[in-house]
Structure formats: C-alpha cells, structure tokens
C-alpha cells in the first residue's frame, strides 16, 4: 500500500476496532428516533400524500446518521491523536497534504456510509422503501458524507481540546442536522422559518437524498446538488490549505 492508502486503512481499522461505539451505537440511536417519532406521529403528520410519516422519516434519519458519523470520525480521530501525541507518527512521514486529505475524508465517508447503511437495513423492518431515483441517493450520500468528513477534518485541526470539539459538534453540527428537515418537510413551516431553512446547507443534503427515494422533494435536486457540491469544494479548499500550511499541527 502507498502512504495515503495506509493512512486510509489505519483510519478504517481505528473505527472498526471499536465498532460497537462507532457503528452499532449510532444505528441504535437512529432506530430509537424512528420508533418513538414514528409511533407518536404516524397518524398525525402527513408530509406527502401517498407516503406514511415513518416511511418519510427513514431517509432523513439515514442521512442524519451519515452526516453526524462522517463528521465524528475525522474530527475525533484527529483531536484524539493530537492530544495523545500519536499524530507524530503521521507527521514524520513523507505523506503529502493531499494524502492526508484523501485518507481522512475517505475513511470518514466509509464510516458515515456504514452507519447509514446499518440504519437503513434496520428500518426495513418498519417501512417499505422506494427507490424513485437511486442515483440521487448515491450522489447525496457520498457528497453529504464528504462535506461533513471535511468539516470534521477542519474542526479536528482547529480544536485544541475535547471541550472545543464537543462545542462545535453540539452547538453547530447537531442543530444544523436536526433543523434541516429530518423530521418534517420545511413546507410545513411558517414562511420565515422556510427562508431560514433554505440558508442551511444541511437541508439540501437531506432534501436531495430524500428525492432519490420518493421522487419528491421541497426543492429541486439539481439546486441541492449545486449548493452541496459548491459547499464541499469550498470547505475542501480550506481543509487542504490548512493541511498544507500545517495549521496547528506543525509548530
């Protein structure tokens, strides 16, 4: 294996060795959401005419799991190895900043997709899935995971302690995912909050992903693709710049 492939493999191995915590636990959490919200709201909320609430909820929960776990993987790996000092083993190598980027983002996409797939498989017991436009499902799953993995990389480089990382995760990532239309269609919101939701890039990831299942969404999947794609390129440019300059890791 080449250098970046080894780092990619090592990062996969890292989360896989603690897969109860990194894969099984988030799957269980998502399924609990489905059970509770699905049970309480199934007969009260109708989002799309022909789709039950539980079925509507599944893609949102899958995407939420993908996003949160892709972020958690790169960010926690970096902050842990920074604080424990073991990042030095990678810093001493000839790996380029591109190698770092591909390995950390790639392995975090794998973790996000592994958890997302786990959630989807378990939810098959509760709702029959549709696959109106499967390609959109794949595209948004990959792009969403990549965007959050890259954000996690930036957060991992920036944070000096676990407290800062927890703040970033709990006060930015979690609210943005919860307020992006996981549990509802933003069409059901008052006009002001609809406008606010359109400023949240997470909304476009979940909306585009959901379009892949139902062929129906709050906004055009092409617009969602453009916004999510642009956001990923922008944060990637920042992440690569930080890695190239050794921001907070080579001084």
């Amino acid at each position, binding site marked *: 294996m080449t250098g970046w492939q*080894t*780092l990619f493999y090592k990062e996969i191995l890292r989360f896989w060795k603690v897969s109860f915590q990194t894969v099984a636990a988030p799957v269980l959490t998502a399924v609990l959401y489905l059970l509770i919200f699905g049970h309480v709201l199934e007969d009260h909320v109708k989002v799309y005419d022909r789709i039950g609430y539980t079925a509507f909820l599944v893609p949102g929960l899958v995407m939420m799991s993908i996003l949160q776990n892709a972020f958690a993987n790169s960010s926690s790996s970096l902050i842990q190895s920074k604080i424990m000092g073991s990042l030095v083993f990678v810093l001493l190598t*000839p790996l380029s900043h591109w190698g770092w980027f591909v390995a950390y983002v790639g392995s975090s996409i794998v973790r996000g997709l592994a958890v997302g797939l786990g959630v989807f498989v378990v939810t098959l017991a509760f709702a029959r899935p549709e696959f109106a436009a499967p390609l959109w499902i794949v595209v948004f799953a990959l792009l969403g995971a990549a965007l959050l993995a890259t954000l996690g990389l930036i957060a991992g480089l920036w944070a000096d302690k676990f407290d800062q990382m927890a703040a970033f995760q709990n006060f930015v990532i979690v609210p943005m995912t919860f307020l992006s239309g996981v549990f509802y269609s933003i069409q059901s919101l008052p006009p002001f909050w609809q406008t606010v939701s359109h400023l949240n890039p997470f909304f476009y990831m979940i909306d585009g992903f959901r379009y892949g299942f139902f062929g129906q969404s709050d906004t055009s999947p092409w617009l969602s693709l453009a916004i999510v794609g642009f956001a990923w390129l922008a944060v990637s440019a920042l992440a690569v710049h930080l890695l190239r300059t050794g921001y907070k890791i080579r001084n």
Partner: protein
Amino acid sequence: MPAVSFQSVSKTFHTAKGPFQALDGVSLDIEEGEFFGLLGPNGAGKTTLISILAGLARATGGRVLVQGSDVQSDYAAARRKLGVVPQELVFDPFFNVREALRIQSGYFGVKNNDAWIDELLENLGLADKATSNMRQLSGGMKRRVLVAQALVHKPPIIVLDEPTAGVDVELRQTLWQFVARLNKQGHTVLLTTHYLEEAEALCNRIAMLKRGSSGGQVVALATTSELLQAASGSVLQFKTDVALPPALAVLARVTGRIVQLPAQDAAEIESHLAALRVAGVDVHDLEIRRPDLEDVFLQVMSGTSASNIPLGEVAL
C-alpha cells in the same frame, strides 16, 4: 555532502505572552556516518532544532538540508531519509506492536516489511510483545517500539531525542548496542541526551547549545576528544557524609555522597584540601581526575572556559 546541514536556523514561537525566540541562527553540519551529540540544558532549543529537522515545526529563518533535500521544499525526500524517535512516550492505543510497525512501514510506502520488522523486534527485545496491544506495554517497552517505528523504513539518518530519559539500565544497554551497530553499518546518528556519560561514550562529535539573550545558539562544536582535551584543569573527587564549608559548596558538584570540585592547578587542589581539613570534613575515596564531558558541559554553560572550547565555524 553533509548528512544534515543546519544553516542559520532561527525559530520564533508566537505565544500568548508575545513572541518567544527559541533559536538564534544555529548553523552546523553533521557528516555522513557520524554519531553526533546535541547537548544543552532544558530550554536551549535542542528539541526545537530536532522538530524543525523532522518537519514537526517550521523554521522562521534559515534552512535545513537532509542529504541535500530541503526539509520544507522537498519534505518527502527529506523525511524518507530520517528516522526520528520522538522525546514524548506516545503510542496509538488502537493497535498491537506488529500492527503499529506495519502501519508505519506503509506510511513510507514500504511493502512486505515483515522480515525487517521481525529483525527489529528481535534486536530490541520485543519479539514476545509483537501481538500485545500498545496500552499493555510498560514505559520501557513503549520506548523500544518508538525506536522500532523510527527504523521501519531503514533510514540512513537516525535521530534520537532523549531516548533514554527515564528508562532502565537494561533498555539503555540494549538500545545503545543496537544503535552503535547501526552506526557502524553506516547510519548517521543524531542524539540529544541529558546523560552526558552516554554522549561521551557514544558520540564522536558534539555541539552544545545554550540559550542566549535572543534564543538558543551553538556555544561549542568539536569532536568529543577535542572538547575533553580543551577543558581546563582537573577535578578533585571524593565521598563524604559531611556538609562542605560554604566557600567550597558554591564550587562543588554534589551527587549524594559524591563531591566533585574543579581545580585549575595543583595550588588550587592544595587549597581545596586545606579548606576541607580546616572544616573537619572527613573524605573517602579521594581521587584527582581529568575533567569528563559533564565537567566540560558545566564549564561551557557557565562560560568559564569559552576561550578553550573549540567552536568550529561558530563564533560566540
């Protein structure tokens, strides 16, 4: 071409209290095949210099070349030639020893490295720990793994940053035998240590760093034998259980019961002995010896023998 060339290296850290200059124009060359010692008190900038060499920090001024490769502009080539044993006892808790070594090999693009990994494990006394998780190892064992990790890609230059700090005698001996053998095979070794007897025994050339008003500077650069020859005077060494008179106490280096008093000439030795007799200090195992590297180091750091100590191309 030198194995390592530090050229006017400066480093300023930006801290909450303002800028802090750690290194001030450090220049020195380490030749191929040398066992080179970098000595200095805490805060002199040894680890900063090593960090710049290894790519863990960036120099504010000057440059560092590893066999001609610049550590910044040609970092990949430079890092392939270096095997660095970091000072901190760090490890990745997710892996066992063999996994850690295989992963480290992979970072350098070295494939199918098990034969060399086995040799490293054998030579460092780690063969029976290959499948142990890093968390289960003692401090000394973790230190051995750090050495093995630095050597997985067979680097021509080995950098050891205080590798024997806080480790037992057995490991020190195992480690030095192994590193000395690698040096004989042609590897260049750069060592920083606080154990000056180790440096004296192992290093054929030594640089001493000292923190000046504007950061760490090279204050001595010479072969070990030149340094020892250049040291002035002798050392009066003895054991005692009694406190020294104040006039001698300020001059003496005391380690438990062992007292070492520097003396420029025979008259000063007589003067020390007279002072001990007058004070009624009961001494045992009295001897007069040549200064060792620790005496030279103390002389250089106190500035008492700057005129005698060779500085190479570096001026005070």
